[in-house]
């Protein structure tokens, strides 16, 4: 079963999370530049994957810093380093945080 990633609550969470000075557009994590940080605003893909990502503390509103990698990517979430392959990183939409760097 697939769930629509942009449910109302998730979108709402994403909108609420934005603050002045932050870009309004979200990008897949794979497109976030290395060294940049962002806030997760939506998850795409299979429900089971979304669920596990959330259970690992990588759900909506989590802060993520992309350390590097060209796919797989290396990220830090809540001080925990996670590796994601390209498809997994493409399924996580983040709002880049202006001026935040690793």
């Amino acid at each position, binding site marked *: *079963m697939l*769930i629509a990633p942009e*449910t*109302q*609550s*998730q979108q709402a969470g994403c909108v609420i999370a934005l603050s002045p000075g932050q870009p309004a557009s979200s990008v897949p994590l794979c497109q976030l530049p290395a060294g940049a*940080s*962002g806030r997760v605003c939506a998850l795409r*893909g*299979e*429900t*089971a*994957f*979304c*669920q*596990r*990502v*959330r*259970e*690992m*503390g*990588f*759900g*909506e509103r989590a*802060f*993520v*810093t992309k*350390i*590097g*990698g*060209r*796919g*797989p990517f*290396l990220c*830090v979430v*809540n*001080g*925990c*380093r*996670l*590796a*994601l*392959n*390209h*498809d*997994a990183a493409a*399924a996580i939409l983040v709002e880049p*945080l202006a001026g*935040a760097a*690793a």
Partner: protein
Amino acid sequence: MSPATSPSPVPASSAATRSPVYALVGNPNAGKSTLFNALTGLKQKVGNYPGVTVERKVGTAYSQHGQALTLIDLPGAYSLAARSPDEAVTRDVLLGRRADTPTPDRIVCIADATNLERNLYLVHQILDLGRPVILVLNMMDLAAQAGLRIRADRLEHELGIPVIPCEAAHGKGIIELKLALSRHELPLPRHAWTVPPALAPAVSELQASLTDHDAKGPLVARAEALLLLTDPDPLRVSGSTPLSAPTQRLLESWKTRWQGEGTDWSGELVAARYEAIGKLVAQVVVPAEATAGAAGAGAGSALALSDRIDAVATHPVWGWVIFLGIMATMFLAIFTLAEIPMGWIEGLVGWTAERVAALIPPGAFHDLVIDGAIAGVEGVIIFLPQILILFFFIGLLESTGYMARAAFIMDRVMSKVGLNGKSFIPLLSSYACAIPGVMATRTIEEPKDRLVTILVAPFMSCSARLPVYLLLIAALVSANEVPLGTQVGLLLLLYSLGTGAAFFFAWLFKKTLLRGAPPLMILELPPYRLPRLRDVFFQMAERGWVFVKRAGTVILALSLLLWFLANHPKPPEDAARPEDPLAHSYAGRVGRVVEPVIAPLGFDWRIGIGLLQSFAAREVFNSSMSVIFSVEESADEETGRARLREALRAAERPDGTRLFTPLVCLNLMVFYVFAMQCVATLAVVRRETGGWKWPLFQLGYMTGTAWLLCFVIYQVGRALGF
């Protein structure tokens, strides 16, 4: 909403006649095995949970009063909403679903203090069970280094359970933990969290239905109701205990309703838990200094060091250089360092055989013991040093945190064939033996990816193939001493051929038979740590013991059977027309039967016997050749090998032509690379896949490929005049 509103103390064991059973549970990389080893020492038993190839570790710890306590080390899990077989075992043991494992009286949760929020998620789910829990906060030193001060007393107050700060790697906190384990009575948790209002009625109704129709206790029913709503797949939650029809209907009706309303029920449940955990963490974790920006918060010196190492270890170029360097070192150690202890084992077995032979008078029983039992077991046990060295390296790589980086590095390659980096570790283990390789697939979450990895793992050239390769290379090269460059080059070619075959068939299966979406990999990379050599040696000893037990049971039985088949019936004693005993034996007759099938590959019936015997253990081929070509035994290992090599070179077909031509030797090596010739692996695959369908398929496609390739090579080689 609290699952236990009136906590009452619970005695250590509900069954007065047995020692209390504690389950040890936590996230992967939380230090669970280190704590388990610290508590149990050498008093451990390693086995498997029946029905799955998930390792089962049970140990005995002692309370401060000397009372024996049974400790079950459960596989690491991120959530009770299990996504892989090992997580399912953890869930089922905690929910009391496994008939082979007693329901734990108490649960010891271990949490990584450096990442408390994520680790408390599983703890939170376990507290829902309403069972007595002890929480161990491990790696407190690393948390302090990261600038985090954790108020364990406050956490204990909030959760109502004993909370023990600990540094398992340094033995700190173990006494305090033992004191907690020794307590006759433990309070029940009193944590509270609010289930989202939209879901609360469903949780209550499902709890009632599970209690009424599925015979669950009230607290377990509530925990299962929450799991059913957390995991989108109810079949995965219910596992081997399917839901009753009324509960199933109730669940479906709620899901249909929420789908209509656009409610993401599972996401809301996780978010609600994290919200409750977030509030708790805010009260108990005090950052030493204000952290600017949540991203990367808590990154202290340990993390910074790991970052610096990762900048090189996961670098697109240097990462590969390091990875290949480590792999080369490992294989070099396996094939060179192991030579010395292998010689010792050979000598010891030879000495034992001589002593035993002196005790037993010549006859059938003498031959059975010496040629059947001892020779058969020796053929396998001799590889113990290689297995131990491989597991030493694997343990070292896991213990330092590098193994996850290796999976990271290999992900790009694995993704080309439709798998992800997690499949790399089972394939690496398969270079020693496919059995631990198949067992290591238990961490792969996607069932199709796991099955593909299992199906191709035996292509990786295991250590049992090595002696066959070495013998055939020696027979192939005309010089008495095979030049090192030639030997290494040919070995590299054979290992590459197997690895290439594994990748090709993985790609083929993912495109056809087991088609599936590209796997999404999310893998935790633990901080780099100095290896805990004690734990590495523990793991090495455990694996080695499993291997030795297999040699002493399955291999011994098969060796005896094969010896019988190769020696019976005896030919009639006719001095005028002496008959070859082997040709007259059952094995010889079977060799004749299979000869028409293997003749197009250049193999005769004598090679056929060796091939058949290899199904017990591939390396038996060498001893088969020794018996078939009547090579005299020699106490000197080198002399024995040289005699066998000469015997193969001298072997002739009935028409007087040479049997082991370079083409036949090459073909035999190719056959051994591709053919599925290991009964023990097939048995493990049967257990893992739950039936004979996939092991038989594996036997068929691998051996079929081997036959086809050898047919082409031999016929083309002959046509070209080789």
